[in-house]
């Protein structure tokens, strides 16, 4: 009965949208339209169709709830063997799985297909800030932890918060619970608060700051990648300033656990094809994404590693026991 109702309702929506038949590939964006997951689904979905990897346009379903948890539980419990389903994922998915924020669901209940691009982590200050390097900022925090407040687009304990803490830990500052952090509604809000002088630093993703960098209203103190990001060569990495921290918000997909190995491989190949396409290269440049392609089994083990690291850091700051 439940599936019947769903089919009816979906049919109603689709007939409004004038979209393709029910058999089309569905991409679940586990958030409302407008965010990173929505971008992943819409962009990858569009390219999959444009380069002929799927036969009909990919239907994007926004399933917001529980910071992605609702979609995760939907896939695990109700769509466990649907081989026409892909779900947008990012570092946030891994962080939340690590912090047990999906009501007991674990990372091994789906299969991670791959990541094809990453939004590099950045630490940004207003153009008129006295901090000229990451070192300046770290020194100020060491002298008086209350003097520097950070704004970011995630709640306390989220990835944006963790980025700052990773840098400070690396610098030998252990009292990380003293660091001031306020969670705002997205990176754009965090940046306006920093330009307005309400927070002294902004921690976020490269894509969130591109426009403000170009207009000269903010300066990036560091980018948290292994090498400088193409197109943004004048921003130094944290690594070259002596802080061994790499934190990128990868964009990728997961699929249900129960699909066959052949189907899993097929999704890996399709994702690789998207990664190799010119359209994706252009989209990455336009959105401040850095190349970051890991597909298939490699990616699964990499995600497992990231989750283990996040668990350790989260325990240290008391987000989880």
């Amino acid at each position: 009965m439940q599936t019947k109702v769903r089919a009816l309702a979906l049919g109603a929506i689709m007939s409004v949208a004038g979209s393709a038949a029910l058999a089309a590939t569905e991409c679940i964006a586990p958030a409302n339209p407008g965010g990173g997951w929505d971008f992943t689904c819409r962009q990858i979905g569009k390219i999959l169709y444009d380069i002929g990897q799927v036969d009909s346009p990919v239907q994007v379903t926004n399933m917001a709830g529980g910071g992605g948890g609702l979609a995760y539980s939907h896939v695990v419990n109700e769509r466990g063997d649907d081989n026409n389903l892909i779900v947008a994922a990012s570092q946030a998915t891994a962080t939340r799985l690590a912090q047990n924020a999906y009501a007991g669901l674990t990372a091994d209940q789906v299969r991670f297909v791959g990541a094809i691009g990453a939004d590099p982590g950045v630490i940004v200050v207003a153009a008129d800030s006295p901090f000229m390097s990451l070192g300046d900022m770290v020194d100020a925090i060491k002298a008086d932890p209350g003097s520097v407040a950070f704004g970011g687009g995630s709640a306390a304990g989220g990835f944006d918060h963790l980025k700052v803490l990773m840098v400070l830990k690396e610098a030998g500052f252990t009292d990380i619970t003293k660091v001031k952090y306020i969670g705002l509604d997205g990176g754009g809000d965090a940046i306006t608060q920093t330009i307005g002088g309400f927070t002294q630093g902004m921690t976020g993703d490269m894509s969130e700051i591109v426009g403000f960098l170009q207009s000269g209203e903010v300066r990036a103190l560091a980018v948290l990648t292994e090498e400088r990001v193409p197109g943004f060569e004048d921003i130094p990495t944290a690594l070259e300033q002596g802080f061994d921290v790499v934190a990128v918000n990868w964009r990728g997909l997961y699929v249900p656990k129960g699909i066959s190995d052949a189907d899993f491989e097929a999704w890996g190949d399709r994702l690789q094809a998207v990664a190799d396409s010119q359209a994706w290269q252009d989209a990455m440049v336009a959105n401040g994404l850095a190349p970051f392609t890991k597909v298939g089994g490699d990616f699964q083990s990499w995600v497992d590693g990231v989750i283990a690291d996040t668990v350790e850091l989260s325990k240290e700051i008391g987000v989880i026991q």
Partner: protein
Amino acid sequence: MELFSNLALGFSVALSPFTLFLAVAGCFLGTIIGALPGLGPSNGVAILIPLAFSLGLDATSALVLMTAVYYGAMYGGRISSILLNIPGDEPALMTTLDGYPMAKAGRAGDALVLSGFASFFGALFATIGLMLLAPLLSRIAYQFGPSEYFALYLLAFSTLGGIASKNQAKAALASCIGLGIAMIGLDNQTGMPRFTGGNLHLMDGVDFLVAIVGLFAVAEVFVFIESHGRESSIGVKLGKVTLPVRDLTKGIGTMLRSSVIGFIAGVLPGAGASLGSFLAYMGEKNVQGEKGGFGTGVPKGVMAPEAGNNAAAGGALVPMLTLGVPGSGTTAVLLALLLTLNITPGPTLFTDRPDVVWGLIASLLIANFVLLAMNVPMVKMFVHILSVPAWVLLPGVMMISFVGIYSLSGSYFDLLLMIFFGIIGWIFRKLDVPTVPIILGILLGNHMEDALRRAMILSDGDWRFLFGFRWHTPSSGYEFYSAIPSSLLVLAVAGFVAPIFLRRVIKKPQAVSD
């Protein structure tokens, strides 16, 4: 004149037979989407994005279609507010207060025509504001920190007491219930779930659309069932549809004031159209005073919120285009659309992509005129909804509510929650407790709480920060960095206290003359 050459560029992009066709189609679809309870502008735009891609539209055409749907939905929301007492979308909430009483008094046609003109006025005002001032206005956002936002939301709540009820205590109770419901879900500051009972569906809190549709539409059906179909308040009288020129000319001042308030609320990220229409209504209510008769079905009572929310819809495009910060749910969707089209809004958009910006502005102007032309003659058609008997109309409303809410998250849990709110709404109606403050509590409660807590984190719990004082250095002590929080707080106190005194002063002579 740079402005005119820019506008010419915009119209050259946006004016072709095909884009005009898209604008008309978008306006029509938008009006219907806005009028359906549950389906608001943000869902409407989100649902239509796949259509834009499957049609293979280019950036400008897609934008024309989406903005036409956006503005169309903002116009359309008023229709069910006035005719059915069910807000078609959240910004249309305030329009029920005077619109529905007008319809009951046989002036449904007048209410629709006047609100249509007010929508046009507000939207046109906002589009012109966007055109002239956008890069300048984006700077306002830099002046608003946590204390400023907290004071702004406090201002909104302080005027709640006098709303939609003769009994201030009941209205205050209702807004506290709303604030309580807003607490449910993940805490934005710590990421910890509150009052969710471990239920994943409650992690993101209670969606205000679920609450609106439950409290208004479903409760209406319960009242209808209880009275065996005799007493439903939906049986409003059908009036003649004429052009109420006198009301219109008398309302120009109202529309202008409301447009200014709405536009400013729209420009502030996070405030949005609902706050815009709310502040416009409350502001105009104070301007008109007791004699204005707000809440009893007066023309100005429908013109103020409609001018306000349409101006806010235009204002919300300012931070979206110039900062990349969406001011409302719908602009978040439009932002997603722009990003997918490889256009990154931000401080440099006006110089980097003038074709997109001015094409958008031109299409807003076009959509606006199309909507005016469409909405005023179509009033006759809408009013015919009223001649449909309630036993046909209400099951239809119920069905649309279910489909609309299900399409939000695709979960049956929301449907159960909606029915629960329907029962609450029915009980409250029996107790004569107004439901509008509940919705506003849910809508604005989280924003207010977040602003307060951010302020407290930044100032280490120092309440003086809320008044615009900031700890500077040990030698200079506190620094008064901004007058905005204090001025807003003074307004809030005045807004709360003034009606109590004014009522005493004004009521007595009135009682004699009655």
